[in-house]
């Protein structure tokens, strides 16, 4: 399956790809991946189930079913995308379907952290610009060239600036978005913090 190939690794500096779009605010993680697909002990097969129920309900007219978008890797969404459940299965399913970056008006907090933690940058843009991009992506192939350092996206020589949290940007550029080893570098400080916390001495776990 295409989805499990070339998953993000190491520093992420540029992303080039075709756009796919989804219209609508408040698209929740239950819609991105319904709960019945959470019965799994790894994420490998989630790609095929992304938006499963929405796709059933839209009779194969869902963008994720349309032939034109099967090789798309940049998703364009509206506001509060990924609200609801904390399930990382949602960005995992998108990633394993083939998504490598998301551009939207806004993202739910937990969904955003989950995306960063698996190497999927989420950029924000104003409502009108998003609408325009969705329009373009619907009419014909829209290829974006994203530069993370500059926080820009280029479409046929037109350049738009994207917003990306500074901390996320740094972690993509230096490849530390997979945070475990960065966190463990401070193990001495962590041990010290644990000893200092007032409630540790009366803990009964």
């Amino acid at each position, binding site marked *: 399956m295409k989805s499990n190939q070339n998953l993000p690794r190491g520093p992420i500096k540029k992303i080039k790809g075709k756009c796919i779009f989804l219209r*609508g605010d*408040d698209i*929740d993680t*239950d*819609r991105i991946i*319904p*709960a*019945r697909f*959470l*019965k*799994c*002990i*790894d994420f490998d097969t989630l790609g095929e189930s992304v938006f*499963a*129920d*929405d796709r*059933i*309900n839209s009779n194969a007219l869902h963008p994720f079913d349309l032939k034109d978008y099967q090789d798309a890797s940049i998703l364009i969404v509206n*506001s*509060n995308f990924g609200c*609801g*459940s*904390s*399930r*990382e*299965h949602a*960005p995992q399913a998108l990633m394993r379907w083939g998504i490598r970056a998301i551009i939207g008006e*806004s993202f*739910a*907090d*937990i969904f955003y*952290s*989950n995306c960063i*933690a698996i190497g999927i940058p989420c950029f924000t843009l104003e409502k009108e610009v998003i609408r325009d991009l969705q329009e373009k992506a619907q009419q014909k192939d829209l290829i974006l060239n994203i530069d993370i350092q500059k926080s820009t996206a280029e479409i046929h020589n037109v350049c738009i600036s994207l917003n990306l*949290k*500074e*901390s*996320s*940007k*740094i*972690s993509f550029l230096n490849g530390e978005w*997979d*945070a*475990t080893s*960065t*966190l*463990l570098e*401070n*193990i001495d*400080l*962590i041990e010290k*913090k*644990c000893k200092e*916390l007032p*409630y540790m*001495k*009366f*803990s*009964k*776990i």
Partner: protein
Amino acid sequence: MSQHTLFDKVWDLHKVKDLPGGSSQIFIGLHLIHEVTSPQAFGNLRDKNLQVRFPSRTVATVDHIVPTDNQSRPFKDILAEQMIDTLEKNCRSNKIKFFNIGSGNQGIVHVVAPELGLTQPGMTVACGDSHTSTHGAFGSIAFGIGTSQVRDVLASQTLIMNKLKVRKIFCSNKLSQGVYAKDLVLHIINKLGVKAGVGFAYEFSGPAISALSMEERMTICNMSIEGGARCGYINPDEKTFNYLKNKECAPSGDQWTEAVNWWKSLASNKKAVYDDVIEIDASKIEPTITWGITPGQSIGVNEKIPELEAIEKDDQYIAGEAYEYMGFNPGQEIKGIPVDVCFIGSCTNGRISDLRIAAEILRNRKVAPHIKAFVVPGSEMVAKEAINEGLDKIFIDSGFQWREPGCSMCLAMNPDKLIGNQISASSSNRNFKGRQGSPSGRTLLMSPAMVAAAAITGKVTDAREFIKP
């Protein structure tokens, strides 16, 4: 930027280090895990050749997939059995405390940790579940995380986070009779919207909040996430301390006084600075119920489903989706809409006080003939207490099914699911499309009292009709 709030104090206390770009490394005092979002985290830890660093700071239980009718092992559902088996093995090999089925302490993770006294003021609490915000009721900073972050907490007991802003939601006056914490929080989400909380922690305060019991406060903080806020909290007070006293994992002896003194110092200062403050008049709130597909699409039980023009422009698109999915018409009365299934349970409203309220309404009454009604206690402890009080009998006599503890139809990962486009009156927290297990199933969120009333009449009903003044 906020200053001197409980959030600021707890954040500063747990900060291990500032990181480049404005984020921080934060220590997690209590880490809770369950069967659905942890297996990949343990797998990943093994792939990286890492150990669980502070196994005594993690506590596990099973809730999401457990069947609530027959819990004998192995479960009929092989995948569910595999998931619980994986959690058992991971806990055993990593020396993590695990409250399994039959231990007396199994249940929904957000019900179990408070009733054991694990959740305490001033802690940071993280769990691979968005309703971790529940624990904020104790004055802890508690939030949901994804599986990669579960792995990070297992490996280092820390997380990378950007500090949240703090919005104070001041609830003046008091809730009127027959109006509950669930109505208050649904009302707040409706007024502020489902995305207003993005980037914020919510501090709930004011007389209407102080008047609430600890269980009601958990209902409020639980649904912070439905308003977009990753965490919500309430400053600790005497009620908090009384609730915690003598709980299994709460401090005892000399340490109790020391702990209480420290807890008292954590509350937001009188002169605290907030990023935003809003006020809600609790006395004006009616029993509240959702009509759409987001928890913000709600109205008072005596109101009509809003016309498109009455809805803010930005919310009209999703309102249109909601009319279509729910099959309701703008202008239609919500009262009287027939329901098929009645569900009492979940981490929002599956605690003993919720069961008491519903049972009081159901005493000597019968569930309407065509209704499937069932109650799923939030934990084994809740179930035990309910049985002691004879509540199980009241439910059964009325026609409710009495089940074993778990998440059940809140998210329908077990066999409890809606069928086709059935309508469910549910005390849970999410009315998303397909949430209760059928791609076309419909959910009306409401308080346990309202679910009980709907079960009796078979349609949306004002629960106050059944409550003695």
